[in-house]
């Protein structure tokens, strides 16, 4: 009887926690808005944006960025941490332009990031960041394992720059100001179908027949995100494929062992 009550109580508590996680942060979504129930429940697994651009400081390098955990309030950046149960992955297909339309891309080189539990005293907490790769993935697709038998190519700490892979790759993992600019509120007033809410109907039929306003409001103007930023030689990535680099695909993923 006591065991049954314990199970029942734990289940109820789980439901309560899930409800709090689900509904407590609904207003805070990045451009990966209302990604899915899983990412809403786990904000630090919620990828908001990716960027890929030539390095402003070295023409031989590119910079790849994946941002997670949308709308971290101003002032809360340095007390927000990555999820220690999430594997963060940057995927590249350096052979993209050689592959058939409709069945590409397939990753041929990936960089993975895992994080430790938060340690340290209040006000001086930190997280260790482990970087795996770049390396060819042990398996492609939506399931993956740690690269190189889970041997990291280097480690560092949150909110501090460091280098890995014999110094070839610069890494930063931590809080940055969200570079995205977007009138999220009006966007979802107009296009509510992409949100988890069943309604309301589009404001085009009622209160906003003219569409977007003459002056939009950047919902993310005063918020932060958790960013993983790497600067890497183009050739280091190209060495994993047979392509010349005229078409390289890049996307980011977050994964958990449960898939939820």
């Amino acid at each position: 009887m006591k065991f049954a009550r314990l199970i029942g109580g734990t289940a109820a508590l789980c439901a309560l926690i899930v409800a709090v996680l689900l509904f407590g942060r609904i207003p805070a979504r990045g451009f990966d808005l209302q990604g899915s129930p899983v990412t809403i429940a786990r904000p630090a697994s919620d990828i908001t944006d990716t960027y890929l651009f030539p390095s402003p400081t070295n023409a031989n390098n590119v910079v790849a960025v994946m941002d997670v955990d949308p709308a971290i309030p101003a002032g809360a950046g340095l007390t927000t941490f990555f999820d220690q149960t999430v594997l963060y992955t940057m995927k590249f297909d350096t052979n993209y332009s050689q592959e058939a339309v409709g069945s590409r891309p397939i990753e041929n080189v990936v960089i993975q990031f895992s994080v430790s539990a938060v340690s340290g005293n209040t006000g001086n907490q930190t997280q260790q960041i482990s970087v795996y790769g770049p390396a060819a993935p042990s398996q492609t697709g939506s399931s993956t394992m740690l690269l190189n038998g889970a041997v990291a190519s280097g480690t560092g700490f949150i909110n501090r720059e460091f280098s890995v892979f014999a110094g070839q790759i610069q890494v930063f993992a931590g809080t940055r100001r969200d570079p995205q600019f977007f009138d999220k509120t009006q966007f979802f007033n107009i296009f509510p179908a992409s949100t988890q809410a069943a309604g309301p109907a589009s404001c085009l039929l009622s209160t906003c027949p003219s569409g977007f306003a003459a002056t939009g409001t950047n919902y993310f103007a005063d918020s932060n995100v958790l960013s993983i930023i790497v600067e890497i030689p183009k050739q280091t990535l190209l060495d994993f494929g047979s392509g010349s680099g005229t078409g390289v695909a890049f996307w980011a993923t977050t994964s958990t062992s449960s898939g939820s």
Partner: protein
Amino acid sequence: MKRLIFAGLAAFSLGLSACSNDPTVNPNGTNTTGSNVVFHEVDRIGKPGIKELYLAFGTHSGYNQSVPAGDLTNYGPPVASFVTTTAGRSAAIGSFVSMILLPDALIANFQDASTRASYLGWETGGQINPDCTGLSGTTFGGRALNDDVVDTDLGLAFGNLATSAKLTSAGTINLGPTPPPPDDGKEKNGANGTPNLTNEHVTCPVATGTPHQFPYLAAPI
């Protein structure tokens, strides 16, 4: 009372641990259940906003757990359907929008000498100008910090960005032999009594980053 509070906290901790079976990945390269743990994707993004603008919420979980190699087959039809039904555009424009946006990955030309990225620059030959400060598009592709990706995604469906009024066949050769379709004259850009669905009028952020110093994105506020 204190005992009650402690008991509550203990129950809360128990509840938290009981809710998750995911192991911590330790910093020394191992994890709590060994290195053979298989991780399953819960989110994926390459290009911004495909799910948010073009796909209904109910499809997002399946999308996140699928691979981009299947995007054109699996999500090309609903993306095209959004363009033809919600946006009311021609079938040819709907199909071309899906070809531009899918697969969901940023594509870049590492041999290109451009010093700036430009969203959809690889797919369109740099003919779309997403930079919010007014700089022209480049053929590097990828995505820059200053790219107005929201207006670009809106402009594909509701404007003329995916038509021959904006794009030449030579510029879109990376997408294959299908040329950009003609403009059907059904833009919803605020002109001729239509709602403005192509420009959300959000100005460039004051500080997107430190352009000449790693890590390039601005410090938190």
